[in-house]
């Protein structure tokens, strides 16, 4: 039995309230829910629609959760694969030179700024720049609803680069680096390496999130229909 537009709207609102709001779950879960609802509706002709929806929800809640878990696992595996692929990419011949140059540049930058800026301040500036980059590239697409894709990426890997920042910050704070007569300092070398690793991690996150955002954009037409 076909559902009216009002009934469809009510179910969308109902499921949204029940937190089954991720786009990817909505597409599959909602259609499953509607299909069961259409099948059950003729069996309960005297039941008001909201009660019927509740009845079907009690029947389907486990199925919706199973769809959510299954999609979550699939996305997780997919993004882990993309993330690792992006992370190891810099360790090929061309990028390796870039990585070594990066360490060298960061190391010398810290040495140069040693007498002018507090090294902790330097790391705070770098941290803020990282944050800007992350927000610029990791913002979800213009989908108006919560989306599993980008949340998964930031949720899974977001803290790793920050851990490197905290490590570098604390290392500088507690070792209070002093340059040797030749201008070398081990702390600066370690923090330069940490900074490059952190940049590689952020790059991998950005590339991974782009895959997610592109997928969202592809599904935008369907998303508009969901929100209609």
């Amino acid at each position, binding site marked *: 039995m076909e559902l009216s537009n009002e009934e*469809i709207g009510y179910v969308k609102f109902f499921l949204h309230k029940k937190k089954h709001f991720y786009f990817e779950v909505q597409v599959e879960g909602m*259609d*499953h829910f509607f299909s069961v609802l259409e099948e059950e509706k003729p069996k309960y002709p005297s039941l008001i629609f909201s009660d019927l929806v509740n009845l079907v929800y009690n029947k389907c809640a486990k199925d919706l959760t199973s769809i959510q878990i299954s999609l979550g696992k699939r996305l997780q595996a997919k993004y882990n694969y993309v993330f690792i692929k992006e992370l190891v990419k810099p360790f090929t011949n061309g990028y390796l030179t870039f990585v070594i140059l990066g360490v060298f540049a960061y190391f010398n930058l810290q040495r140069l700024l040693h007498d002018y800026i507090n090294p902790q301040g330097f790391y705070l500036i770098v941290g803020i720049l990282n944050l800007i980059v992350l927000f610029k590239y990791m913002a979800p697409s213009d989908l108006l609803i919560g989306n599993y894709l980008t949340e998964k990426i930031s949720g899974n890997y977001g803290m790793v680069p920050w851990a490197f920042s905290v490590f570098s910050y604390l290392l500088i704070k507690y070792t209070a680096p002093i340059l040797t007569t030749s201008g070398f300092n081990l702390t600066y070398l370690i923090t330069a390496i940490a900074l490059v690793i952190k940049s590689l991690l952020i790059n991998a996150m950005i590339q991974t999130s782009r895959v997610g955002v592109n997928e969202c954009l592809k599904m935008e037409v369907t998303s508009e229909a969901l929100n209609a």
Partner: protein
Amino acid sequence: MASNNELFKGTLQTIILKLLSENNKMYGYEITQKVKLITQGELLLKEGALYPALHKLEAEGMLETSTEIVENRVRKYYALSADGKKEVVSKLQEAKDFIAQLQLLLNLNPAI
């Protein structure tokens, strides 16, 4: 029948691939209903098993998905990919071999 479902667990992917080879594209609920219809209600394909299997097959590249707007709502369809079309042949052969071995092992009447 619960025992029936247990026995069918290992062949779920084959069932899905076979159904999709006979139908151009299907959505999740349609697959459950088709299985119910073919087996006259003897085999109930649980959504908790079906959707993970569909997602796994999709991740393995056996299935392709598309979304369509049907009656003011979005429906996700599954169809066999080129790899899936090849896989269905080997999966069916695998199932036939398994049934033949089972008949030998359990001394079942071949007519069963």
